[in-house]
């Protein structure tokens, strides 16, 4: 069966005085009442439709180096959700407010290949929402404080030249839990990123742009030890589940995405969905996310190093 997320629900009154639900995006057949009860009941009893428990992730596959012309790239598959992320580094000028920091721009594109509703401008809203959520989780506040990615490592010549990282993600197949998959793909792509070494010609005056020589041979691997992972907890009924499929997401009451780094610190938090949450539930979710982040982080790390090792083997052979 094919199901879609209900963005928001409009109710349209018709002539008989009956309220008919009118959905935002046009979609295919929805879930019947019986199916909804089945899913909710299963979650209550800690058995989901695909046999998982509430706190289990789907199988995760990571492949790095999939885009040769980018500085770093990765392709992550969580169940049927598949995303590709690529990192491109270009030289640019740091902003006047932060002369010692480089810049990172995250852009998500939802491809029509994943969902027919993403055709034309249909996927723009979701893309914008995901891009902003990722920037919030990974890049910290507007002052750059608390960023998961160390922006000071991107500086070349303070106040004059810095590296601009353009992180582009593409959603190829969408089966729920896009934010987690995107976070994981960006982490893997950054682990795969090699930034070329730049030699600056010495003795340039304060106003002039120094000459740069971008090395073709030497590269610096990007340090990803501080990059957080994103865990999305979706509330369905009275319980919350991790790694929801689009079927389960279609009748969630609310979802909280929490990004946690290696030290167990919370780096960012986003709540989506109409229903309000009791504050105690939110703090409970945060502790659950912290616990799950350790498992997800170690799993991702082993997958990423396995993928990188594979590339190493291919290059040697």
């Amino acid at each position, binding site marked *: 069966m*094919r199901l879609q997320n209900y963005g928001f629900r409009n109710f349209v009154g018709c002539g008989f005085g009956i309220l008919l639900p009118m959905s935002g995006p*046009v979609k*295919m057949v929805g879930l019947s009442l019986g199916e909804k009860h089945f899913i909710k009941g299963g979650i209550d009893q800690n058995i989901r439709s695909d046999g998982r428990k509430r706190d289990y992730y789907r199988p995760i596959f990571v492949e790095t180096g999939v*885009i*040769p*012309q*980018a500085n770093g*790239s990765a392709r992550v598959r969580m169940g*049927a959700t*598949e995303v*590709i992320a*690529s990192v*491109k580094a*270009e030289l640019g000028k740091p902003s006047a407010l932060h002369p010692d920091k480089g810049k990172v721009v995250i*852009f998500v*594109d939802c*491809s*029509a*290949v*994943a*969902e*027919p509703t993403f*055709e*034309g*401008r249909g996927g723009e809203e979701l893309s914008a929402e995901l891009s902003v959520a990722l920037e919030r989780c990974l890049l910290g506040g507007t002052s750059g404080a608390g960023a998961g990615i160390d922006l000071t490592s991107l500086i070349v010549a303070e106040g004059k030249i810095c590296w601009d990282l*353009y992180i*582009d993600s*593409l959603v*190829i*197949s*969408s*089966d729920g839990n896009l934010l987690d998959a995107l976070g994981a793909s960006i982490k893997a792509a950054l682990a795969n990123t090699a930034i070329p070494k730049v030699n600056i010609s010495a003795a340039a005056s304060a106003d002039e742009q120094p000459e740069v020589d971008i090395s073709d041979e030497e590269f610096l691997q990007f340090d990803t030890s501080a990059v957080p992972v994103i865990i999305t907890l979706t509330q369905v009924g009275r319980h919350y589940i991790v790694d929801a499929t689009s079927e389960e997401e279609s009748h969630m009451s609310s979802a909280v995405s929490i990004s946690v780094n290696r030290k167990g610190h919370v780096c960012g938090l986003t709540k989506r969905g109409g229903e309000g949450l009791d504050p105690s539930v939110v703090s409970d979710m945060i502790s659950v996310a912290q616990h799950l982040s350790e498992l997800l982080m170690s799993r991702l790390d082993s997958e990423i190093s396995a993928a990188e090792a594979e590339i190493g083997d291919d290059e040697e052979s």
Partner: protein
Amino acid sequence: MEFVNPEGLRLDGRRPMEMRQLRAEIGAVARADGSAVFEMGNTKVIAAVYGPREVQNKSQQSNDQALVRCEYTMANFSTGDRKRKPKGDRRSTEISLVIRQTMEACILTHLMPRSQIDIYVQVLQADGGTRSACINAATLALADAGIPMRDLVTSCSSGYLNSTPLLDLNYLEDSAGGPDVTVGFLPKLDRVTLLQMDAKLPVDIVENVMQLAIEGCKAIATYIREVLLENTKQLEYRRGL
């Protein structure tokens, strides 16, 4: 610039009549009715087909045939320089139209009236010949979706540089300023369904270059047929037949 050196080798070491390496994979997108990834050298394209399904825009519905729609987009990271706007630019609109017309000609649309078939093609890596790779991927995706077609549509490009007809141009050869002929071909029916050319070409050479592209199309058709047969065998095996 020399595109064919005195030994007869091109920039990437191929012979003039040699095609790039082909690779195809069926069923890449689980949620689509049919999908395929097609690679021609470094050009990598993913196609997904949704349909036949109910027409979304009733005004476009046709009572005697299916509505075929197509969208071509390039990923941000597909080209060497990062593309700012993935969709909506004129080149994408033109290529969407070209792919739609090519596929519409070979789908048996009269068998599925009042329905809609959507073909979405996404370019993951662009290294010349994206149009052809998209048509080949779309053919595979349509076959995977089980949509009835008259024949497989295959496409290949050819050019003429340093007085030599070249098959399957890559990006460097394409941007050299020489002619670029793209041919869409129905192998069993032996019919040309798409023919596009830019830049100039002497009239007596046109036939040669076009014929070379057609030969390329036939080779791709053989490969596509193999891939589909292999896929069917896998499906049979999984069903326990």
